[in-house]
């Protein structure tokens, strides 16, 4: 097996360039998919026979919720890589992921609450799924706060990595909470392998929206990681060269 691609990608300057090339594509694809998903979902799809139009929140809620979990896993994995191989790139990715994940967790919570009012008659119930998702938000906030508290970026990233790894236990709790506890929240139907249990003209826009959200997250994380790398490497030669290349003030310090 040839690992040179891995090492090359792992070096900050080549990742910076790679991310710079990939990010616009991801962003563009994400926007296109989102446009289709939302148009098909919010305009074309027929209203639900029970929920009427309220069900349309699903096109925001489900992607946001799914992404909130995936990003946490990504963050913890990046953290593990940062700890084990002391890889600067992984640190940057981890630090970049946390705010994106936190935003989508908050979005999932808010859309869920807005949906809960018509469905359950209350914005908030103390239900396993809901509370676990709230805890997920706290974990993201913890990582962000811990990182901010450190002066030294590398030490901060490593501390966050440890925290993120321990917090990983919450992810299965969120996902399986609907099965482990009797919950008001509906069980997995869409995000299950095999045959989805909703009609196709509702499902396809949802899948498009899901993919779009992943693309947009990827875009955001790549861009944030780029910034993070620039900040961390501001005294290295490649950043200086980049700065002169871009014609900006060559003084970055």
């Amino acid at each position, binding site marked *: 097996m040839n690992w040179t691609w891995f090492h090359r990608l792992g070096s900050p300057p080549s990742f910076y360039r790679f991310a710079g090339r990939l990010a616009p594509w991801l962003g563009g694809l994400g926007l296109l998919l989102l446009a289709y998903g939302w148009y098909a979902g919010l305009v074309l799809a027929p209203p639900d026979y029970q929920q009427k139009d309220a069900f349309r929140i699903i096109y925001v809620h489900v992607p946001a919720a799914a992404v909130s979990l995936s990003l946490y896993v990504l963050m913890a994995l990046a953290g593990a890589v940062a700890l084990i191989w002391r890889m600067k790139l992984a640190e940057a990715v981890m630090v970049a992921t946390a705010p994106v994940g936190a935003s989508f967790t908050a979005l999932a919570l808010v859309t869920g609450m807005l949906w809960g009012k018509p469905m359950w008659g*209350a*914005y*908030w*119930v*103390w*239900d*396993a799924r809901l*509370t676990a998702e*709230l*805890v997920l938000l*706290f974990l993201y*906030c913890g990582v*962000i*706060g811990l990182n*901010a*508290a450190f002066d030294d970026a590398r030490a901060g990233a490593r501390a966050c990595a440890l925290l993120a790894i321990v917090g990983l236990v919450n992810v299965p709790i969120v996902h399986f909470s609907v099965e482990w*506890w009797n*919950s*008001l929240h509906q069980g997995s139907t869409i995000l299950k392998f095999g045959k989805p249990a909703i009609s196709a003209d509702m499902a396809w826009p949802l899948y498009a929206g899901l993919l779009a959200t992943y693309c947009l997250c990827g875009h955001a994380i790549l861009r944030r990681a780029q910034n993070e790398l620039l900040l961390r490497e501001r005294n290295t030669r490649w950043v200086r060269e980049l700065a002169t290349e871009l014609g900006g003030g060559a003084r970055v310090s």
Partner: protein
Amino acid sequence: MKALAAIFARELRLAARAKAEWLMPPLFFVIVVTVFSFGTRPNDPQLAAFAPAVLWVGALLAALLSLERLYRTDQEDGTLEQLLVSRTALSFAVFVKGLAHWLLSGLPIVLLAAPLGLMLGLAPPHLGPLVLGLALGTPCLSFIGGFVAALTVGLPRGGALLPVLVLPLIVPVVIFGAGSVRAAQQGLDAGAPLYFLAAILTLTLTLLPWLAAAALRNAFE
């Protein structure tokens, strides 16, 4: 006057430096309420009856957590002895520190109480007494707590002592505060307990800074 402004500015600057610090007491408040609700049966309609107690105890503990640091760092790095030497009116300094503590940890809690009350199932008309009570009660927490922090600042492990000394002193505040909400829930007059709270607050604001200043002077030996 200038000295007080300086102390106040320093507290705010410190909070701004430790970037996310001012976020922590309200976050703690939210988390305690969450953990508590998680410890109960899901969707328990009874929860609303306990909401006042949960919110008040949560607010109390959130304020408690940051109290220990009120004077400890100043004592450890020598700022306190410089203040003593500088002949600033110590009681005013204590007052300003209490005020800053309330602004940074009490006020966010007051603002958060209404949404959290709703989450715990409190009916909207009962939010008034809750928020008013907390607005009157949290400054009491800051000042009573500050007094105890001053008492324990010189002690080797004052941190352990602090909460145990604060809690009994604070009990009346919690009784009246939570009592006011409960009175509202039972359709009784929610005003009377609030008047008591206001009285406690007045007493606290006028007397405790002097006592705390004496405690600080004493702490040096």
